[in-house]
């Protein structure tokens, strides 16, 4: 029995610690702990609900936009504001752009080094790498000369002895299975993706003023005006620029990300046996003109793809039995976010410490449960719910991916499936963005320049008390914000965040959270080099700054 600690878990957002019990080369048990807390929930109390989004957006700069969207939707729900279609379209474009860029960055810069041995790329034959590249894609950077140049750069870098971000990696670990040529291809695309991500995100920079932390969101709509006859508003030039970045997104996902994903996955098919969960929750996203969501909401239980249950936020309860908080009614009860409380109660070891007290409270994250069940959220949940609901675009791409890998839907319930699902969502979203641009252009053509519903902008128009909630299916999964407004001020503000679901500690029954559960059974070749654990942890794309729960302390 070895007790293995990974802290810091790197290539994620925020501060995550993972402790695992390993014996006979397998993970027997695992504990996920969030080790940072800011108390933004307490900071929000008494402020103007219209600016809550500015504050909560700062939960995370990687998931930038997502909390802003959920927040304005929660306030709009509370005040019963219907936003103009153009505002929904601009939001859809910002969300879609964020999703595509975020998933590519995740694959190359946060996840790839778990599968790709950078040092092995030095041994590759550039001519064979070129053949491999041409066999899987028509992406133009595919010549022998090109790969030779990448390899030479890498060589010079390694020979200098300053490996920088690649130092002390797990290079040469037996779990790396790619041939040197595939490693070189992936390293080349790692660098290309770095250049691509800063360009493609300019769609958000145009519509949101900047990235990260765009600043055109507004309760009631968007603060970026539309006027085809003004140089200070969304006009024909803007539409042309949006199309340019939309095409840039499609091209890279189609010709680089998906082919790489399939090529790499084909060497790691055994990872269809590890890292799976059974329950999934997706809240749906991208409002369409008909009022429906383009990607459906729903809940899947026990891997049953034959039945998708409708989603009802009232069935969410949060537990703090094993989290550093205490509830006034005792730590065994679960509370719905509208009735939530947060009283920090740190009972963990005093730093510096070697191990957590995993028999007691051990995380700043709460344990959200849906009908008492832990739920995985994120790209896999989105794909499964859409697939099971017969969603045309998702089904088409998912079937193509499964066919190319020679696996069936059962393989989706795994680390491999989760990683593939992220690519599937990125591709269908990249295509869908074009539809949103066309619809926006058509509205402008028809003389509809409306971007905000300002009827309720003035707090004098608000009721004395109101409460609302907003869903957003963010890149990392289902996100929900809850607000209680009293006397025009925030009385209570709460969030149930994707990483709170996925990285949750045990609950009142001792049931593990999704990541903890997914880690059990993972093979570990060398407990001093926990590469295999990182593969599954990273497949969830953890965001810990978001994940530790945010809740309003009520004044008694």
């Amino acid at each position, binding site marked *: 029995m070895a007790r293995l600690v990974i*802290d*810091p878990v*790197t290539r*994620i*957002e925020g*501060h995550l*610690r993972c402790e695992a019990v390993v014996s006979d080369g397998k993970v027997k048990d695992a504990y996920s702990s969030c*080790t*940072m*807390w*800011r*108390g933004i929930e307490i*900071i929000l109390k008494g402020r103007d609900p219209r*600016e809550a989004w500015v*504050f909560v957006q*700062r*939960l*995370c*700069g*990687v998931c*930038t936009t997502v909390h802003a969207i959920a927040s304005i939707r929660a306030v709009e729900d509370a005040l019963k504001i219907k936003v103009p279609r153009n505002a929904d379209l601009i939001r859809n474009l910002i969300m879609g752009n964020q999703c595509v860029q975020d998933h590519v960055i995740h694959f190359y*810069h*946060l996840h790839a080094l778990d599968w790709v041995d950078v040092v092995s790329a030095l041994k590759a034959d550039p001519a064979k790498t070129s053949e491999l590249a041409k066999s899987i894609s028509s992406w133009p950077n595919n010549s022998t000369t090109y790969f030779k140049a990448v390899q030479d750069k890498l060589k010079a870098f390694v020979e*200098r002895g*300053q490996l*920088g*971000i690649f*130092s*002390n*990696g797990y290079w040469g670990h037996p779990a790396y299975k790619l041939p040197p040529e595939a490693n070189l291809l992936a390293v080349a695309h790692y660098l290309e993706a*770095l250049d691509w*991500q*800063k360009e493609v995100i300019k769609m958000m*920079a145009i*519509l949101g*003023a*900047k*990235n990260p*932390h765009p*600043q*055109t969101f*507004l309760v*009631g*709509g968007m603060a*970026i*005006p539309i006027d085809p006859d*003004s140089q*200070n508003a969304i006009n024909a030039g803007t539409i042309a620029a949006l199309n340019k970045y939309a095409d840039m997104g499609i091209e890279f996902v189609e010709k680089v990300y998906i082919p790489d994903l399939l090529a790499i996955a084909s060497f790691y098919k055994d990872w269809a046996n590890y890292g799976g969960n059974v329950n999934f929750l997706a809240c749906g996203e991208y409002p369409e003109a008909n009022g429906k969501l383009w990607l459906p909401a729903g809940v899947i239980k026990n891997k049953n793809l034959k039945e998708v249950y409708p989603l009802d936020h009232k069935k969410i309860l949060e537990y703090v039995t094993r989290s550093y908080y205490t509830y006034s009614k005792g730590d065994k009860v679960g509370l719905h976010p509208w009735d939530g409380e947060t009283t920090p109660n*740190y009972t963990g070891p005093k*730093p*510096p410490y070697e191990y957590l007290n995993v028999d007691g409270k051990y995380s700043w994250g709460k344990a959200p449960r849906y009908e008492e069940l832990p739920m995985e959220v994120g790209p896999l949940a989105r794909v499964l719910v859409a697939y099971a609901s017969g969603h045309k675009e998702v089904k088409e791409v998912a079937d193509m991916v499964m066919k190319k890998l020679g696996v069936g839907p059962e393989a989706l319930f795994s680390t491999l499936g989760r990683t593939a699902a992220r690519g599937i969502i990125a591709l269908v979203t990249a295509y869908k963005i074009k539809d949103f641009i066309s619809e926006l252009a058509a509205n402008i053509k028809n003389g509809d*320049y409306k*971007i*905000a519903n*300002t009827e309720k*902008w003035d707090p004098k128009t608000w009721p004395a008390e109101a409460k609302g909630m907003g869903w957003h299916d963010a890149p990392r999964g289902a996100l929900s914000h809850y607000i209680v407004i009293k006397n025009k001020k925030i009385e209570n503000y709460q969030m149930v965040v994707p990483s709170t679901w996925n990285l949750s500690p045990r609950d009142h029954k001792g049931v593990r959270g999704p990541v903890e559960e997914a880690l059990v059974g993972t093979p570990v070749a060398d407990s*001093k*080099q*926990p590469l295999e654990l990182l593969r599954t942890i990273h497949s969830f794309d953890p965001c810990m*700054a978001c994940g530790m729960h945010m809740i309003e302390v009520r004044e008694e």
Partner: protein
Amino acid sequence: MERETIYEGLVRKGVSRRDFLKFCASTAAVLGLSSSFVPKIAEAMEKKEKPVVVWLHFQDCTGCSESVLRATKPTIGQIVLDVVSLEYHETIMAAAGHQAEKSLHDAIKKYKGKYLVVVEGAIPTKDGGLYCCIGGRAAVDILKEVAKDAAAIIAIGTCATYGGIPAAKPNPTGAVGVRDIIKDKPVINLPGCPLNVENFTATVVYFLTFGKLPKTDNLGRPLFAHGILIHENCERRGHFDTGEFAKSWGDKGHRLGWCLYELGCKGPFAYHNCPTIRWNDGTSWPVMAGHPCVACSEPKFWDANAPFYAGVENKDGFFAKASKIGLGAMAVAGLTKKENKE
């Protein structure tokens, strides 16, 4: 082994001499230097070894790292592989856990007295700092240890500089900025929520070119980035002076790019170079897009400049500053109001 210079690194990356000089020129522009400084910057890049950088994350949202990932002049690929030697950065480094800790300790030992530390995020000090632990240690202890042998520290973003959002009222974790803890080292403050990457690269280049940290204001912010009010360089300033104000989201004034002061803009109270360098490779910035500035580069802006959508006629000294702020003060007072009607 000779460590390579920045220029060698860029050449190895395939950057042409012409692009290299363009990079030097754009850096000079961000720093507000005349073109006569370009050769000096180029010379420094050719001779200086790559600075070793250790990057610490505390109570942050990673937004400042993400901002740096959007760098275009030079690109992030060039920065990470060629301009600096980034020895520790939790978001992108390959190693985790013990291996990651080893990278940190190796770097601060091997480059003692020479490395730059970048700090992202605030540092909680309440209850012994237990609200942010990495590798089982409190952020405040890690900062002190890593700062001890650093050449200089760059605090990036409003959290690392002034405590930022975790320090907003009532500051539940006792969050503070780097200068509140480290008193015996040069600390340069690069605020912003997030910081604008152009100001980060310009600071590094300034350090390499002139061998010292840039001149700062009394809040430790470089004058090249925070020397002038947003209001003074704002593209909508003319509308303020002539009393042309957007009154409501999507109205005529809003669509025509009129002043956003009455919708809550805090540009008259924020020292930041957004209007001149903009964001994301010069694409846009909040006022250009049509949303008020929230003064994110100012200490305590979460409290001092909120509510973000309210006018600030009552802000201390606003009318006293009228001569500086311009005719708009008269406009606000109703002396030169222009109609904003369809």
